[in-house]
């Protein structure tokens, strides 16, 4: 409870939580309240302006209702973002904890790999990776997870390095505790603050990456879509002032990513963790 109070003391974090909850409801419950055809195309009612024929936000080039599409797309963006963020966090945590705890040559090798990975801009990796595999939702999760575990790995390693010199770890070793026990029982739990806080940012970043991947043309197979894909489709209509194809998905991304960042900041207060690497 105390933890929640500390979290709630950060007003923005609370706002973030509410926004995220609303977004989740919007994408999960929304389609039940406002059912629309999002599988079959309807070329006869394509490119309608907002308000026409009962489409509050108009339709797109294939005749899909934009409001309904926003909900469906949001499911993908959120699902992929959250799972990819978690995947990245899990891989990064394990990698970083092991590198930091074991140290020496193992650490050096593992961290050089991380350095190399970081040196290659993620978007470049994504471009190449997504032309190797066909981006389904699961592939996207995997691919985004695989390019974004590096930062958490770094953070957790730094944390592990400092945790491992704490007296309670030394004590555990002096008691004869095995290495695996120390990593699992002491190192990992004590990096949890860093990890949880970073995971929130990681999810936020993953949602952005999903958008970038779609923007760069590596979208999902139709009729599936995500906010980034909607947005980049809208881009081609930027000169025709089709704001209803651009602003809704764009604002949805910004809102959710903001909300996650606010929540992360709030959690940071709770866990008392420092810093954020973007």
């Amino acid at each position: 409870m105390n933890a929640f109070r500390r979290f709630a003391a950060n007003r923005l974090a609370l706002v973030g939580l509410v926004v995220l909850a609303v977004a989740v409801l919007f994408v999960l419950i929304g389609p039940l309240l406002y059912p629309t055809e999002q599988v079959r195309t309807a070329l006869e009612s394509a490119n309608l302006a907002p308000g026409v024929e009962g489409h509050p936000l108009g339709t797109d080039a294939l005749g899909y209702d934009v409001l309904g599409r926003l909900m469906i797309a949001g499911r993908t963006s959120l699902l992929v973002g959250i799972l990819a963020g978690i995947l990245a966090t899990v891989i990064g945590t394990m990698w970083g904890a092991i590198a930091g705890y074991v140290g020496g040559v193992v650490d050096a090798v593992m961290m050089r790999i991380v350095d190399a990975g970081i040196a290659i801009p993620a978007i470049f990796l994504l471009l190449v990776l997504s032309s190797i595999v066909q981006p389904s939702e699961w592939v996207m999760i995997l691919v985004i997870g695989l390019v974004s575990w590096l930062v958490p790995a770094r953070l957790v390693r730094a944390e592990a390095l400092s945790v491992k010199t704490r007296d309670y770890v030394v004590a555990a070793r002096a008691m004869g505790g095995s290495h695996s026990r120390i990593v699992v029982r002491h190192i990992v739990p004590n990096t949890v603050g860093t990890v949880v806080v970073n995971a929130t940012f990681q999810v936020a970043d993953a949602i952005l990456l999903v958008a970038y991947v779609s923007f760069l043309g590596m979208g999902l197979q139709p009729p599936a879509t995500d906010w980034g894909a909607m947005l980049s489709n809208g881009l081609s209509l930027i000169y025709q002032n089709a704001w209803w194809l651009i602003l809704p998905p764009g604002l949805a991304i910004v809102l959710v990513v903001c909300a996650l960042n606010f929540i992360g900041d709030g959690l940071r207060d709770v866990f008392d963790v420092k810093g954020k690497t973007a």
Partner: protein
Amino acid sequence: MSRTPDAVPATVAARATVAGTRPRRHPFLFFLLRRIGQSIIVIFVVTVIVFALLQMLPGGPARGVLGVQATVEQIAQFNHEQGYDRPVWEQYLMFLGRLVTGDLGQSYLLNMPVSDAIAQRLPKTLLLTGLSLVIALLIAIPVGIFQAVRRNRGADYTLSTLAIIAYSTPSFFLGMLLIMLFSQGLGILPANAPQGESVLAVLAEPQRLALPVLTGAIPLVANFSRYMRSSALDSLSEDYIRTARSKGTPFRRVLSRHLLRNSLTPVVAMLGYQLPVMFGGALVIEQLFNYPGMGLLFWSAAQSSDFPVLLGCVLVISIATVAGSLLADIIQAVLDPRTRGGLS
């Protein structure tokens, strides 16, 4: 719990002399060599990763380069000429061999050496990111310090919120908004970046440069100001700030003489790691504003499986990144006299 007579980490090395050995003569030189060694290893790993990834690309470039109408014989010939029919490791060694002589191969699409293509584009990307970076720093550093000093007050919250919003906006969306606002709505700034071939020609059209640079700078301002704020907050709580104030130094001077330099150090380190992010951002911005830099080069190479260009771009950017973080480390060391102890 600071009431401890026990060792404070920073002094461990200093005390290492107790038992009779001297510290290294030139710790800075040692540090430098070590970092350079690491950087070389990292670049090597990068070449392996990139090469392996490209091997996994389906199809191979031949059909893409030669077009739909090419014959089977022409494709076989192409693959033979380019060495694609050799074992992978042999291709890698060949590639590495050429790399050390600075030869990045020939672009299939542009019909020119990759190094020339990059030499033509890189300066422009550097210009774009460099301008964004400088502007971002000029804004973010004072803003971050201001926020740290005014922490948890209205202005701080407002700026933090703005920063998070800016950070949360995908740069292509941001760019679109700017275009909608400045180009279409107000009609005061063109949506198309300068197409000039040289950096000078690009600079000659500052009004065209405005939107791309702005799009690049805004997220950086957001990011750096957040960093600067937290780093300045850390420094503000340091004892030496208190010492400085206790000798009667006016607060403004404390900020400029004591806080700035100390809180800049971690920001500089972070800059090194931001490079790949910035290059990634450049890719999107160049795409959006049609700025003919490395990002677009990479993009069109990716679209056309122009392997040598792909490899070349990734390598150059990775090397730039590695060099950047090396430089950041060195600057950091220079800023922080603790790390250059035995240099004199």
